[in-house]
Every structure is written in C-alpha cells, then in structure tokens.
C-alpha cells in the first residue's frame, strides 16, 4: 500500500492525541507517586519486603496451579465429545465478566468456615480447614484463572490439524511426543505469564481471602497505607515497587508475545480422535467432572444463597445499582472511544499505549491520582468519576486488542476496494469500518462494562461513606458478617453484570452481516 499508506486519512488524527493523553495521564500519576515516595526517608521495611515476597509467591503458585490443572482438563475437552461440552466451554469465558467479589463469596460458601466442604468434613469427624491466607488467595486466583488457562491451552490443542493427528495414528507414533508436547511447549509459557500478570495486580482476592501480616500483597498494602495509616508517602513507595514489578513482568510478557485474550475460535473439531482405553476415558471424565464441579459449585451457591437473601436487601440497593450502572456505562464508553481512536491510528505507538495499562495497576495509578487530587479537593468527592476513568484504563488493553485486530482485518480485506472507490476519511469510517466493527465493538463494550461494574479496588481507595457501588456495598456487608444480605446483593450484581455484557454483545450481533 505505498500510495495508500494513509488510507484512513483524517480519522487517524485523534489517535495521536489520545495516545499522548493516556501516556501523559499515566506518566503524571507515576510522577506524582515517585515525587511523594522520594520525600520519605527510609525505604523497604521488613513488612514491605514481606508483601513483595508474598505477592510473587502467590502469583507464581496461582499461575502454576491454574496452568498445571488446565492441561489435563483442556486435553480431555479437546478429545471428548459429550452433551453440554459447548455450554461448558462457553461458561469458561464467564470469569471475565464475573465480579471478583461475587466469586469470592461463592468460594466462601463452599470452602469457608461454615461452607459445604467443612460441613462434609464435620460429618466425617475430620478437622475443619481454613482458607484464609496464602491458601485462600491461591484458591481464589485458581478459580478465576483456571478457565483462562483451559481456554488458552484448548486453543493450542484445537490448532493441531486433524490430518496430523490421523498421520500420527497411522504411523503408530506417540501422539504425545509428536504433537502434544511440542504444542504445549509453545503455549504454556504464554499462558503462565498471562495468569501470573493478572495475579500480580489482583486486589480483591487478597483483600477478602488474604490479609494479616503474613498474607498481604503490595496492592493491599498500598490500600492500607492510604486508607488506614494515612501514610501517603509509604503508599507511594509501595506503589513504586508494584509499578517496577508490573513493568518488568509486563515487558517479559510483551516480548514473549504472551496471550492476552480469552481464546477465540473454539468451535473447531480438530483433535477429536480419542483413545478408547478404559483408563484414559475414566481419567478424562474425572478431570472434566472435577473442573466443572470446582467452577460451577460456587456459582450455584451464589444463586442459591442470593435468592434467599433477596428479601433482606439493604434499602440503598436501588441507588447502588444506578451508581454502578452509570459508572460502568461511562467506563465502557470511554474505554471503547479511546481504543477505537488508537486502533484507527495503528502502528507501534498505538500498540504500545494500548498495552501500557497492563504494566501498571489500578491501585498504582489510583494512588497517583489520589496524590494529585489531594491538595486540590477531597479525593473522596471524585470517587465515582475517578473509578469510571480508571476502570476504562484498566479495561483498555483488552478492548484495544479486540478492536485493533478487527480494524486490521477490515483494512486487509476491503482496503483496496475502498481505495479504488475513493472511500476515505469519515465516509470510510461510517460506511466501512464502523459497520464491520459492530460485533467486536459490542463485545468490547460489554466486556469493559462488566469489568467496571465488578471493580472494588479503585472505589475502595477513593470512596467516602456515601457513594456505595454494588461491590462496595457487598464488601461492607461481608465485613459486618451480614452474609445473607451480601448474598442478595451478590445476585443483583451478577445479574447487572451479565445483563450489561449481554445487551452490548447482543447489540453488536443484531443483523450484522458476516
């Protein structure tokens, strides 16, 4: 495309401004953090180092377990056909739009002090187990990321062409050695890094299932320094540490091209020649049943307990729903607008800026914003707008990835035709790009809205007493041991989150032409 090197013309222009704005905003936050941190003598107390160590250990354990368990499950899913298989695979995408605090409540209902598991143990006269601390944090992260691991690895399995499987069978060679191990070797590092990165910046799980000096992550320590110790300089130091950690591993992931996505194109039937041995059938059945139970049971408990809690919903629930929905809509609109501008711009700058938020975290940038606002106004008064803005940024990498690949695909398929017809600028956006982008835009907006509606980190960092969103309301009810009311709110939150996702995704699909 030599002569058509700038086929998008004027519609590329906003992308550069957006790139500068995002980079400037992130840069200013980091600068505010660094300046504040430098003003405090002494660095890295024993408690800070413990938080750093715990952050790394829990992330490594969570990633190893999520990916390790995903291997046999993905293998079984890849080679077995059974009723409900499609539904199960679809369900594996759910944790992306499931509010983390809701997942935690479900896990507590199963594994908690008076949960199902402990009741069973009591029946058998066995000692109770406690999931708080490292075990709980890892359990939460495995629950949330096992599905991602399964989807990523399943993709690898389904990418093995069926002809090659037949060839291996005919040659009576080892399928494992010829096909599966080479595939896993190329897929596993990326899957591990993706989960590791998510666990590095995860806040809600550590907040609710960790805690105490032995099980505090850096993100949790930041929050505590801001909200409990009122030691902003300490928070800034911790944020700097978290930033360095995130940047290092994000750079590693970026260089290795680690998977950022949720496993597309899982409809193929590539690897279906299953071995017939009794043992392998039994093992595959075991893994699928185990994974399904582990992932579904907490969700069933959320619904069951939630229905019971609907009668005892707190009085402020209606306003909280409204607040949560408005914040989510604002976050989705902002995220999609930024991502679209960047995607239309294209090129390495857009790519870099679109991925940049991955290297930071909501709490780190949140601390920066808190510091910047601190001298000007009471930061708690800006809680909702800041939450929307930061949620938009956190969702940006996911939203951008989907939209930019759709823009590239559209240009690759129809760019020449559009150029030959003189379709440029706004007409090109209106007549070619936006219509072709309906599905990915709808999906991305749904994802961003659902991610935002479940946010607890930013709102907790900024909130005053009177700006409760649904997750915050849930968290406060859980803290007051009003578990029934919390379960009711959890059900409302799930319904809101799923509805937002469904509406946007549906809107993108309605009479869209292939």
């Amino acid at each position: 495309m030599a002569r058509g090197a700038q086929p998008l013309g004027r519609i590329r222009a906003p992308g550069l401004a957006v790139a500068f704005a995002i980079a400037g905003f992130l840069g200013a936050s980091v600068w505010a953090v660094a300046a504040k941190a430098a003003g405090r003598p002494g660095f890295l107390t024993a408690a800070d180092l413990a938080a750093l160590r715990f952050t790394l250990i829990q992330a490594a354990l969570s990633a190893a377990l999520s990916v390790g368990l995903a291997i046999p499950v993905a293998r079984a899913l890849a080679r077995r056909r059974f009723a409900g298989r499609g539904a199960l695979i679809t369900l594996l995408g759910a944790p992306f739009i499931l509010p983390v605090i809701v997942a935690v409540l479900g896990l507590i209902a199963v594994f908690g002090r008076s949960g199902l598991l402990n009741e069973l143990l009591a029946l058998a006269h066995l000692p109770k187990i406690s999931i708080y601390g490292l075990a709980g944090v890892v359990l939460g992260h495995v629950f949330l990321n096992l599905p991602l691991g399964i989807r990523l690895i399943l993709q690898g399995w389904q990418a093995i062409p069926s002809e090659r499987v037949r060839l291996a069978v005919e040659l009576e060679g080892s399928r494992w050695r010829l096909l599966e191990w080479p595939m896993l070797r190329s897929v596993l590092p990326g899957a591990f890094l993706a989960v590791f990165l998510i666990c590095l910046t995860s806040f809600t799980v550590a907040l609710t299932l960790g805690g105490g000096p032995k099980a505090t992550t850096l993100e949790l320590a930041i929050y505590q320094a801001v909200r409990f110790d009122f030691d902003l300089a300490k928070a800034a130091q911790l944020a700097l540490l978290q930033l360095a950690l995130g940047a290092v591993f994000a750079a590693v992931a970026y260089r290795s091209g680690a998977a950022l996505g949720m496993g597309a194109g899982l409809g193929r039937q590539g690897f279906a020649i299953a071995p017939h041995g009794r043992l392998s059938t039994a093992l595959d059945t075991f893994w699928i049943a185990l994974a399904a139970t582990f992932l579904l049971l907490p969700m069933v408990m959320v619904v069951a307990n939630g229905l019971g809690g609907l009668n005892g919903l707190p009085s402020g629930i209606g306003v909280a729903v409204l607040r949560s929905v408005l914040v989510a809509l604002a976050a989705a609109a902002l995220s999609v607008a930024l991502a679209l501008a960047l995607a239309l711009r294209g090129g390495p700058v857009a790519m870099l800026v679109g991925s940049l938020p991955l290297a930071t975290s909501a709490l780190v940038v949140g601390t920066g914003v808190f510091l910047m606002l601190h001298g000007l106004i009471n930061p708690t008064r800006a809680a909702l707008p800041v939450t929307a803005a930061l949620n938009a940024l956190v969702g940006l990498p996911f939203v951008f990835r989907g939209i930019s690949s759709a823009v590239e695909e559209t240009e690759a398929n129809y760019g020449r035709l559009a150029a030959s017809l003189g379709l440029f600028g706004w007409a090109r956006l209106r007549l070619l790009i936006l219509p072709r982008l309906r599905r990915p835009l709808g999906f991305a907006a749904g994802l961003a809205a659902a991610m935002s509606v479940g946010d607890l980190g930013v709102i907790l960092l900024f909130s005053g007493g009177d700006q409760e969103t649904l997750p915050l309301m849930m968290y406060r009810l859980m803290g007051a041991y009003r578990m029934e009311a919390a379960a009711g709110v959890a059900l409302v939150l799930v319904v809101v989150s799923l509805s937002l996702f469904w509406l946007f995704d549906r809107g993108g699909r309605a009479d869209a032409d292939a």
Partner: protein
Amino acid sequence: MLTLENLTIEQGDFRLKADWSVPEGSVTAIVGPSGGGKSTLLSMIGGYFSPTSGRIFWKEADIGALPPGKRPVSTLFQDNNLFPHLTVAQNVGLALRPDLRLGVGENEQVEAALAEVGLGGFGARKPGTLSGGQASRAALARVLLQSRPLILLDEPFSALGPAMRREMLELVAEKLKGRTVLMVTHDPEDAKQIADLLVMVDGGVANAPVATSKAFARPGPALAAYLGRK
C-alpha cells in the same frame, strides 16, 4: 493508450519489468506461471504498489503519483469486490458518491446499471444472499457506473464454474466495449474468448503484447512451456 515506461519493481528476490503499451479500447490477457507477477503488474497500474522505477501513462498523463481512487482505473479483485454490510444498490452507488449521499437521479442510475447486468430488482438485497455469478454481476454494475476508461480484472471470475465464467466474460466484452481492459487469467480459453492481445509474464519480465491469435498459432518458447506444448 496505456503506456508502461521502463516500469520495474524489486522486492527481495522478486523482480518484474515491463516496457510497452496497449492501445485504447483493446482487451489484453495477462498469462504466465503462478508467482510470476501478473497480479503485481495490475497492482502497480491500480496504484496499490509503488514501482521501484519507471512511469505509467494514461494517454499523455503520468498517473504514477495518483492515489488509487483518483486514477482512471476500475479494478475487479479476486474476491471481496462487494462490502457485505451494504446492500447491492449501496455497493453500486459507491461508484457515484463515496459518501453514498445519493439523489433521486443517482438512485435511478444505480437501478439502470443493475438492470443492465440482469440484476433488476436486486438492489435491496445484501451480497450474502447472492450467488457467485450474481455477486460478479453486481460488481460489474459498479464498474459500469464508475465509467472509468481503464479496467483491471484480477481473476475476479476464477471461483465460478466454466459456463458461468464464459457468460461473465461475454458480458464483460459486451458491456465494457470501448474501454481498455487488462485481464489476468490462468485459462488460455479466457484469452482466446475475448482478448485482442496477450502479455506473457515470465522470468521477471512482462513481455510486450502480441496479437492473441498470432500468439497461440505460433507461441514463443515461454508461452509454449506455459501451455505445455513442445
């Protein structure tokens, strides 16, 4: 007259050279082995690739610096000739106004062009509901309406069956009479059916055009090898 003056393109190991012209109103078939550069040649004329050196003239004007939409060229590509999200009428209407703000008169022109290729009444349909032959006709209707003098056909009918392809070529010969057509093809029969001239692309050179009848009666060594004759 379309003139390629010392046109060359080099990309890594690939190179292609062309230095000839074809008269206005002629139909030229471009044949040769896969990967030889037939499509690349059309892409340079259409404005999608920059040549490494050389110039392209239409009549007296050097068109080498113009963007694709500003050249006197309409192209039918191998696929994706219609936008699937627009109706057939909108696709054809793009020939008149790229922003699709069509007036009453322009809508009538679109309808007339569709009728001319045998698609009267198909305007409201989406391309996904058309057969392969109908989609080709719709794209041809747009080319008719664009009324640009130079037409590049980059194997647009290669996915059609033999009978349908012959029919489309007849339609092209009939409706585009008077325009200058360059057509890439794999099938010598296509060339025999409608082409006045034949360009053989082989060994990094797009050879000067030869009258089709002459070329097939007494093929040069490259064409003979391509056709599989001794």
